[in-house]
């Protein structure tokens, strides 16, 4: 595998405000093709908003979003749909459809694109569920009957079922036990290394970040304040990143707590 010179995703000057609150204040970021990027940052720093902007779910106030070198902020309906066909997203809260059973959730995109029939979908769902450590019988349950961690894993299976080219994971291992977390990390690495996908993950778990990330970026104050190798997290030499990665109270990042 060789690196292509154009980054898979490039953000330039991305800005987004909700009312008076400037959440993104000029985000610049490059994600290499067939690599895994981990985004770090405090709670409420705009990580989820950033990837929702890339997906076109939130319209940024200003800035350029390029995918494969082409600006995607002003696509028409058909081109946006074609782009969406190549992307996958694991939402922070799972966002499973509670009106349909788990198996239909997992195969939703394949069914929507008519790549498989409803008869094939059950078997396909069973395979996808096995990958995230769930029994085939889970497929017949409704999402409301699952535990939080199980919902997360079903949502993950749904996000990768259609083999997307670009995958976004919003806190993939939050709420999972450590062993299952490691299994899921392995699955994400698999998507990148075996299937050649490009992954962007948000995580608060440093061990997980080092396992799944090639590169890492830290967002703070509406900007990317650091990018570097994920392996070096915790000893990067950047005071802010090291404080965050090691979870120290004292450092350049001040939590806005009222004393």
């Amino acid at each position: 595998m060789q690196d292509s010179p154009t980054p898979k995703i490039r953000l330039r000057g991305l800005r987004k405000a909700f009312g008076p609150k400037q959440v993104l204040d000029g985000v610049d970021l490059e994600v290499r093709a067939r690599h895994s990027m981990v985004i770090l940052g405090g709670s409420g720093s705009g990580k989820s908003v950033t990837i929702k902007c890339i997906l076109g779910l939130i319209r940024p106030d200003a800035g350029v979003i390029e995918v494969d070198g082409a600006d995607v902020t002003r696509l028409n309906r058909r081109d946006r749909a074609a782009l969406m066909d190549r992307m996958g997203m694991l939402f922070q809260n799972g966002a499973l459809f509670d009106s349909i059973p788990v198996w239909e959730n997992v195969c939703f995109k394949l069914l929507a694109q008519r790549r498989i029939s409803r008869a094939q979908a059950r078997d396909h769902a069973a395979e996808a569920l096995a990958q995230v450590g769930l029994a085939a019988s889970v497929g017949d349950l409704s999402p409301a009957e699952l535990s939080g961690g199980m919902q997360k894993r079903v949502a993950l299976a749904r996000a990768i079922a259609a083999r997307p080219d670009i995958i976004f994971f919003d806190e993939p291992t939050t709420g999972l036990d450590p062993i299952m977390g490691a299994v899921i990390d392995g699955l994400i690495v698999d998507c990148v290394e075996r299937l050649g996908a490009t992954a962007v993950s948000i995580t608060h778990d440093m061990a997980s970040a080092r396992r799944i990330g090639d590169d890492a970026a830290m967002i703070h104050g509406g900007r990317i304040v650091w990018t570097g190798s994920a392996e070096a997290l915790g000893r990067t030499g950047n005071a802010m990143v090291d404080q965050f990665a090691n979870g120290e109270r004292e450092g350049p990042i001040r939590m806005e707590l009222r004393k």
Partner: protein
Amino acid sequence: MSAVLDVVATLGRAVLGALARIGRLALFAGEALSCLVRPPFALRQFRQQFIEIAYFSLPVVALTALFTGMVLALQSYTGFARFNAESAIASVVVLSVTRELGPVLAGLMVAGRIGAAMAAEIGTMRVTDQIDALTTLSTDPMKHLVAPRLLAATLAMPLLVIVADIIGVMGGFLVAVFKLGFVAQAYLDATFDVLELMDVVSGLVKAAVFGFVVALMGTWCGYNSRGGAQGVGQATTTAVVASSILILALDYVVTAAFFSE
């Protein structure tokens, strides 16, 4: 002077805000309608919604119509008791039910049952990111959620109103014959003498319009809900109140269009 300007500015802002909202609603409706002519169509969703609206609303609508017809017969008897009572009561019942009360009461019932459910379901999907998830799963939420509901409600309401018409007239008939002691055949003859095709047609047109309005307000309020359980509750209330008011207002508009020469 500045106080006057303040009032004018406030009024202007309110008017502009309302106009902007109406514009967005129109765009929303236009987008949903365009989904009905662009394949692929969400047939499963349409069928599910159609059954939910047409079939499961039958008991409520039928009961409402039955009692309305019965009350109409009883009420008009006090007024028309002296002479020619059969034909007077029969025509009051059949004309009020087919032209007005059938479609309006069925519309209000469906607004409470279906409009509320649509707003709550779609609103919950909005605040739990399920609508965004649809988009990432190669499914247009307008096509998957909104368009089937609009079409199903618009087609199901006239069917419901046909049933309501029949049952409402039957309610009046039962009271006239078994309580007021009229001759069954004479009452029926009087009913069909006075009834014209236009009465039924105008009622069915109203029904289709009301069905569209209920589904439009339900999906629109749900689609634009914000901020968790409270936002969904608010969306549901707004959907029911707005569609009920619109039903009564549009009832006047359609009546005027049909019956003003």
